[in-house]
């Protein structure tokens, strides 16, 4: 590998969908500035470099690493340790690395029940020999070793210390560009980076604060999924219209993209500053605006949210206070062999 005097940049994906990489490419011509300011040493989606190349680098030699994805397998966590060791600034990039995101919803189920469903139970699976993934396999070419699954998906900062958090599923491109600007300026001594552990590339307040819709005193008689609402008032708060919008607890920074398009905020920017448990804040907010004092009627209204854990913790389960369901925690020993 060639080296030059430019600061080094890396981006890595663990358990994620790849959307974060696309979001970085979406900064368009700004990418040329990244190339100008940094030497890209490791970025599996964009260039060819091997793990052994990273291992060969001196410790702390990568200036900036954007790490996206949660810790689903032992390999994810191994890479997290490697990137931590090699990087000066490690950013938990995107919702998966920050708070588990959609892959974190697997924390509602045990590994065994997920394997059972996916390898035999689901209606579209045909697996008469009941073949299951193995961590070790004797192939004619030699012994193969696959990383074990963790029984509970963890966030990046639950495995290694993280310098900054950049939320979003994916982070907005203009926010990424702003963060890269900031780091470049800091490298040239023209700016300072925020304190360690800070959330960057996002606001401090809630999506509601960025949302242009009108808010009145809320009184909800019924919750409905957005696709079942006949006509959405374009100017009125979605929650007031009975659409379960997660804006009240979600960090600002996206510009209220979804509510602007008449879709409820799903909560991908994670908890607003000072919110300890995202789902608790939402449960509190939703329950407060239900317009009924009768337990039976309240029950009927709550039936409009058929999957409360999925509603209130869609992106945040792995980082919530409980982190995983009891089913998923059982047998948790940090590293679970699945057979």
């Amino acid at each position, binding site marked *: 590998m060639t080296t030059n005097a430019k600061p080094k940049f890396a981006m890595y994906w663990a358990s994620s969908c790849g959307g974060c990489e696309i979001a970085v490419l979406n900064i368009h011509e700004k990418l040329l500035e990244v190339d100008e300011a940094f030497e890209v040493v490791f970025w599996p989606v964009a260039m060819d470099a091997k793990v052994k190349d990273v291992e060969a680098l001196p410790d702390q030699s990568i200036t900036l690493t954007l790490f996206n994805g949660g810790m689903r397998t*032992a390999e994810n*966590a*191994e890479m997290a*340790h490697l990137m931590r060791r090699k990087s000066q600034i490690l950013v938990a990039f995107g919702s998966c690395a920050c708070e588990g995101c959609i892959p974190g919803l697997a924390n*509602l189920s045990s590994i065994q029940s997920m394997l059972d469903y996916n390898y035999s139970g689901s209606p579209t699976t045909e697996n008469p020999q009941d073949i299951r993934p193995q961590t*070790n396999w004797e192939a004619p070419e030699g*012994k193969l*070793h696959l*990383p074990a699954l963790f029984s509970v998906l*963890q966030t990046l900062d*639950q*495995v*290694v*210390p993280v310098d900054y958090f950049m939320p979003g599923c994916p982070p907005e491109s203009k926010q990424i560009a702003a963060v890269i600007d900031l780091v470049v300026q800091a490298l040239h001594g023209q700016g300072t980076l925020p304190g360690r552990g800070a959330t960057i590339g996002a606001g401090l307040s809630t999506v509601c604060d960025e949302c242009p819709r009108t808010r009145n005193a809320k009184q909800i008689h019924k919750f409905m999924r957005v696709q079942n609402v006949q006509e959405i008032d374009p100017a009125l708060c979605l929650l007031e219209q009975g659409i379960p919008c997660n804006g009240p607890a979600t960090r600002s920074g996206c510009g209220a993209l979804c509510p602007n398009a008449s879709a409820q905020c799903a909560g991908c920017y994670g908890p607003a500053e000072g919110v*300890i*448990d995202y*789902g*608790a*804040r939402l*449960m*509190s907010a*939703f*329950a*407060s605006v*239900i317009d*009924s*004092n009768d*337990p039976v009627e*309240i*029950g009927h209204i*709550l039936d409009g*949210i058929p*999957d*409360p*854990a999925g509603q*209130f913790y869609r992106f945040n389960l792995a980082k*919530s*206070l*409980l*982190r*995983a*369901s*009891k*089913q998923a*925690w059982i047998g*948790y020993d*940090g*590293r679970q062999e699945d057979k």
Partner: protein
Amino acid sequence: MEPTKTNSSFEPVIIGFTCNWCSYRAADMAGMARMKYPTNIRLIRVMCSGRMDPLFVLKAFASGADGVLITGCHPGDCHYIEQNYKALRRFLLMQRTLEQMGIEPGRLKLVWASASEGAKFTDEVIKIIDEVRLLGPLNWPAGQEMEMLPESIFDTEAAMEEEA
């Protein structure tokens, strides 16, 4: 009064949230009248059951509580007019979420008790302790597992050698 249930080795920890105006006075009343209930419950006084953030309940479970009892003024009697209804709605919503998380509904209870209902308060405390004793320990691991995974467990080459 002796704990009534069979499993004597397990002593559940119950966190009780009482409102300043009714249910905490009910607990006071129980004390003044020398009514007895087991020591498994730890009472925390809040100004109103409407002050109960779902966060408090989650924090209690994640920190090792086996059960949580929320108590407030009877409907219509709230010192802050109708905040106990808010507590009711939060409680009903929380129960649904907690069930998905594998926390049995019996571990979280909402009880109304007026300042004069020391006896009712005592009964309800005994009831939830008995019920949780039957459910067994919760032992939520999140609080204990917060420390990071040591790097050594990812030494796959050593693991392979060990297996060989």
